[in-house]
């Protein structure tokens, strides 16, 4: 072929997003509102369907008259729909009510314990991504061989093991029998003391430890995080492995892979480039959903390891039958879920040129 002269094109052209993309982002963003609204409504009415929170929490401990007084004072004797509108109004101002058992603003609990949950979820996500994507791709490449069967069995085991049981086993092995890692909590007492010196603690212990600049504290914090992050991370990793494997295999058998193979592209490149990027779109979408589910796993993990985050508090309040607090925490999780799903959908759309342009 002749070498005809061609003008190199400026790269900038490729990065222009279409108006269709912005329309997609906008409509997807607006979808958060009905989603949160539906969940808040469901949560509110389900929680209140069979009675008021005060009788649930304090019934039996107070005299009926006193109970009635408390109920009246809190407004729980008004029609349910009025209370619902009242609650919605409060929600708009960030007011989620006051807990019954320890008389705290729900919103303060959320800010105080939220960081711990995010830290755990973040570390677990790293575990899940590394293990899930890594093993998932190997399984897809070694499809139907021993390695694939082994990885799939591992994935199903991860998924079949309740996170609290895995937590207990890890605890038993590493904390009790081998005694190499701490059994529970987010840090040792010494580190807690150190943290109290901080002027503006973030609540993220890893960041706080870095602020302190104390290596011992950092190591202590990380040692505490290993088991919970592993327990929660492996649960999600099981799902990720399956997700990655299935999607890579199904794009790997598509027509454009066959076509690229017919032009002499190597199998390795077919798998790592040609099949990987299209597979990524459904993978990212489902992963978003899994991140949301991780928050439920966090409730169980935190309870197992006495990791004082939102999940731990949720189970404490559940035990105390403090349904105002439970409702507040659940609604916060609903909002997080909706926002995470939105972000993930936008990322998936950015990968997909059919939406991007």
């Amino acid at each position, binding site marked *: 072929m002749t070498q005809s002269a*061609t*003008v190199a094109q400026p790269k900038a052209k490729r990065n222009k997003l279409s108006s269709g993309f912005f329309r997609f982002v906008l409509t997807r963003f607006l979808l958060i509102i009905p989603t949160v609204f539906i969940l808040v409504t469901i949560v509110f009415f389900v929680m209140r369907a069979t009675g008021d929170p005060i009788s649930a929490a304090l019934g039996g401990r107070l005299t009926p008259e006193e109970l009635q007084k408390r109920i009246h004072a809190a407004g729980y004797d008004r029609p349910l729909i009025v209370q619902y509108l009242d609650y919605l109004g409060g929600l708009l101002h960030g007011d989620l009510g006051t807990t019954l058992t320890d008389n705290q603003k729900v919103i303060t609990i959320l800010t105080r314990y939220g960081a711990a949950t995010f830290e755990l979820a973040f570390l677990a996500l790293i575990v899940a991504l590394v293990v899930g994507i890594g093993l998932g791709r190997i399984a897809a490449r070694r499809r139907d061989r021993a390695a694939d069967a082994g990885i799939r069995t591992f994935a199903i085991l991860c998924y079949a093991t309740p996170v609290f049981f895995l937590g207990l086993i890890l605890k038993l092995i590493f904390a009790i029998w081998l005694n190499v890692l701490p059994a529970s909590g987010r840090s040792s007492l010494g580190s807690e003391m150190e943290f109290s010196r901080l002027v503006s603690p973030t609540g993220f212990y890893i960041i706080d430890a870095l602020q302190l600049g104390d290596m011992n504290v950092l190591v202590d914090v990380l040692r505490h995080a290993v088991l919970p992050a592993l327990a929660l991370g492996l649960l999600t990793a099981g799902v990720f492995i399956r997700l990655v494997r299935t999607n890579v295999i199904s794009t790997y058998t598509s027509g454009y892979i066959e*076509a*690229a*193979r017919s032009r*002499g592209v190597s199998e390795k490149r077919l798998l790592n480039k040609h099949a990987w*990027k299209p597979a990524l779109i459904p993978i990212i979408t489902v992963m978003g959903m899994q991140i949301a589910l991780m928050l439920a796993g966090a409730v169980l993990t935190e309870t197992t390891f006495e990791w004082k985050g939102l999940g731990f508090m949720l189970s404490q309040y559940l035990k105390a039958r403090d349904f105002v607090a439970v409702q507040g925490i659940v609604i916060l999780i609903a909002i997080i879920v909706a926002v995470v799903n939105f972000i993930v959908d936008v990322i998936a759309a950015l990968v997909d040129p059919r939406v991007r*342009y």
Partner: protein
Amino acid sequence: MSEIGNGNLAEIKDLSVSFMTDAGSIKAIDGISFEIPRKKVIGVVGESGSGKSVTARSIIKLLPETATTSGVIYLSNRAGSEKLDVLSLSGEQLREMRGSEAAMVFQEPNSVLNPVYTIGWQIEEGLRAHGMKDKKELRAKAVDILKKVGIPDAETRVDYYPHQFSGGQKQRIVIAMALVLNPGLILADEPTTALDVTVQAEILDLLRLARDEFNASVLIITHNMGVIADIADEVVVMYRGHVVEQGDVEQIFYSPKDDYTKRLLGAVPRIGQRLVVRDDEGKVIERKKDWREQPVAVEAKGLTITYPGHLMQPDFTAVDGIDFTIHRSEVLGLVGESGSGKSTTGRAIAGLQKVSGGSLNVLGIEMNGVRERTFKPKRADIGFVFQDPGSSFNPLMTIAENVAEPLIVHGKYSSVADARHYVGDLLEMVQLPRAYMKRFPHELSGGQRQRASLARALALKPSLLIADEPTSALDVSVQAKVLELFKKLQVDIGFACLFITHDLAVVDMLADRIMVMHKGKIVEHGEADQIMQHPQNPYTQKLLASLPVPDPREQREHREHLHELLAAQQ
């Protein structure tokens, strides 16, 4: 230079391929041999299941893991200095051979382009696989080849994604991907089957370019005799895994030796050929009444159908203010390319699609704003034959249950068991054995299913039948049988018919009048012979000129005519 005799590019000797399936091992091709000369277009023609695709794929050993092969395929490289024994290659050698010595063009351009990479990257990917590294050079080559295959504004569009191109352009890009590697052999597997006839002509021109300017040989796989007549120098006829005949194109068309070739050529529909059916005694069956004197069954005035837009997009107008009438016992042919709105029109008549504007009167009922309750009694009088024989029957119901459905819905019989006798008669009417009643749809072949579909549509002896591409999914020989049956039943029962198709030759065989539809509008409308012989509208002219004639000599002139026409229209 070449070790292969007679300067041939490739030789296939005694090739057999079999596949392992759930039902056991199945032989796809059985001991075929033929040669591919240099700088020629070899047409491999055969109906579905003849093994033609497997043959092409074997040449680059692009077969599923379940395949086993025997025999030899020799492929000499471009320079003719080396001879490759393709079937013995594996790993790196096989990879190097693919693309650089022989490259493939596929049937469905939509599915063979990776949706998430730019076409430029995908073109370059082939070059990278064969060792080219320099970024500027890669890009220059990509732009250059896009220009050569006729993509306008190639410098910019090299950075576009597949979904930003039309179907025909995508196929050009797929061909560009093959040509850029400069292989000695292009394997084109039904490269025009998924495309409209006007685009098909362009793609065939492009494949000729591959032979004439890139000095490559082209092995084109097709079921279409017109395509063979248009492009092939040599022809290989395949049937059920065997090569039944091979020779140069003139020999195959003008003095075919094998019976199968003769029958195949006989079954190909041609323009200007009326379908004549005879009864058992050999008398020609003709309609007793003249359709022109019959009352009108369907009348459309300014019929408009729009699909609501999705996500703040504007509405899409599929049918844009069309007028037509169908008389009782008339066959009206509706011709158009994909997306022309022809199917939507048919669906509106059958009450499957809401009419958005204008008037559509079907058997005395106004369809604009009609209520299902008003229309339901009329449904007994309307039959519909769908395109895809694979999905037009409920897979979990027997043929008897499927065919009896209209009878039961309209209360003619109370149960399938009751209707059994009549359903048997219906099956015999469409020339299927009664015993097929007990079978499930997947136990029938495509042609048989389409006949059963006809039996269902005609079960209530309707006065109006809508046939939406009833034969386009069938092989030519099967198609011929179904069309013949169709004609016979039309004469017998005398229903009015809207025959929707993209194939001008098929519609010419059957229709009394023809409408040509393009982008939601009717561009030409008139007596069948008039339109076929003296088309007035430029689009109809282009459509007719693009349709390849299954006769190599005639097609040569026909092609000239197309090129003149296109030049004049520009």
